[in-house]
């Protein structure tokens, strides 16, 4: 069973919800926000396995006749023909292998280039994209495959609604959309809802930093979208978060997350 936590807008509390809820539900936690993974700060896991995530990149052998077919085949402009060789811009390469298939002379071999790292134990996993690398997608794919044996997972998605979010969400049984009671939160929540409806995944919304009836409540009512939890705002919670502590360490928030956990169990 996979529950993915996403948001549209950054900083609404995805990681707060995902980490606390993973503890309450006893689910494994998988941090798919590989550009800025932060879940480890709160869960403080002991890592038992660490490995590099690699992406296939082409290299040309002596068979290369410089015909340039590979250059034409590459949709990402990662290959360029210069005087006497084909040059590769590694960061642009998606590792798709189109160049290899386009080559008539078996001149393209490849090597696996490290683009990030994966760390895990029996109930925690995270990926981290190396600096200057643009694409987190391949790391998310590997991360999900490597943790497929976990019976239940909470997947902490990256912010936004781009292709990395799709990779994190893909195949999940249920989605939790985390928002905050601001016009920004609502605007981006609508985009996340559009994405999750396109992907036909059942979902509910959690309003974080809740104070009193908000514009988000009105919207959810109008659209008939279930709100599965409201996490109250408090300065103490903000301070606890800043230190890297789980909110469920306080009795008040433990109850809030118990109630959300109950809802999620019921929905699954």
């Amino acid at each position: 069973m996979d529950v993915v936590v996403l948001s549209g807008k950054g900083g609404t509390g995805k990681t707060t919800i995902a980490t606390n809820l993973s503890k309450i539900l006893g689910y494994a936690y998988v941090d798919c926000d590989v550009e800025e993974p932060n879940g480890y700060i709160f869960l403080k896991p002991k890592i038992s396995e660490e490995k590099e995530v690699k992406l296939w990149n082409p290299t040309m052998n002596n068979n290369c006749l410089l015909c340039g077919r590979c250059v034409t085949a590459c949709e990402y402009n990662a290959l360029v023909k210069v005087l006497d060789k084909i040059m590769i811009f590694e960061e642009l390469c998606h590792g798709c292998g189109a160049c290899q298939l386009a080559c008539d002379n078996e001149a393209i071999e490849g090597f696996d280039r490290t683009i990030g790292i994966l760390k895990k134990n029996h109930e925690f996993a995270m990926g981290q994209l190396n600096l200057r690398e643009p694409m987190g997608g391949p790391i998310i794919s590997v991360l999900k495959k490597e943790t497929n044996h976990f019976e239940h997972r909470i997947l902490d998605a990256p912010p936004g609604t781009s292709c990395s979010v799709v990779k994190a969400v893909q195949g999940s049984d249920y989605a939790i959309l985390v928002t905050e009671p601001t016009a920004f939160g609502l605007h981006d929540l609508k985009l996340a809802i559009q994405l999750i409806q396109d992907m036909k995944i059942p979902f509910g919304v959690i309003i974080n930093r809740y104070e009193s009836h908000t514009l988000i409540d009105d919207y959810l009512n109008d659209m008939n979208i279930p709100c599965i939890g409201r996490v109250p705002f408090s300065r103490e919670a903000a301070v606890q978060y800043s230190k890297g502590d789980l909110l469920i360490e306080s009795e008040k928030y433990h109850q809030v997350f118990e109630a959300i956990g109950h809802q999620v169990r019921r929905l699954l």
Partner: protein
Amino acid sequence: MRIVVISGKGGTGKTTVTASYAHLSQSMTVKVDCDVDASNLHLMFPTKVHERYGFKGAKKAVVEDWNCSLCGRCISSCKFEALSMNDKVIVSDLLCEGCGACRYACPSDAIRLEAVTTGDVILSEMPNGLISRAEMIPGEEGSGKLVSEVRKQADRSERDHQLLDGSPGIGCSVIASITGTDVGVVVTEPTQSGLEDMKRVLALMKHFDVVPYVLINKYDINEDIVRAIETLCLGEKIEIIGKVPFDSKVNLAINQGTPIVAFKDSVAGRAIEKSFYKLKERILS
């Protein structure tokens, strides 16, 4: 001069700061919202759309069934697992990265690539100048390309200065946002997450030769981490151009569509205003 506001971690206050700087800046500054998959800057201003066009920023494989012999070679060639067989070959639009490897694997010439619209690029007028932004179609490929298109549109407006609102993270959208900018303001918050993410984004800026400044938002949440940020900045010779206190008026201002610097009696607004003039002074000297 191109100034980008960035953060690493999401939700630290990039757009609140950018909207304030935009409000204080002259009309010769074009505002650029590089957060194409969650664009919010325009919500802070009354805007009038000048120009809007669809941008084809990705390609998708299309299988022409009448040529297809159902051999399945395309399926095994796809590294993104975007193809599957169910009486016929089906392409998942969400998973296809438009690489075209399937096209070369196909012996029957049954696959072509089709350019698809990934979002709309929009140029609008706002009270003091222009704003260039995009609305990405949720789930689309190529957010980095869309960011580059938004920036091209801003370049065409031929204004002297550009103020860019970045997106969270350190990946393609962020690289596309900071490439070729002169100055970067990193908006951070004194939390463990904010600190860790700031370190990564500062390292990225160093690589791209962007001069960094740091602005600490909600500084009174955790003074210990503020000291850790100050120590780090001192070591890296990065100036902290402002410390903004937590202020519940910030959310009120957002919900009223007013930049916080234009909001009455806001302590956060005053601090951001001060940081703007400090930054201006540094840039001019």
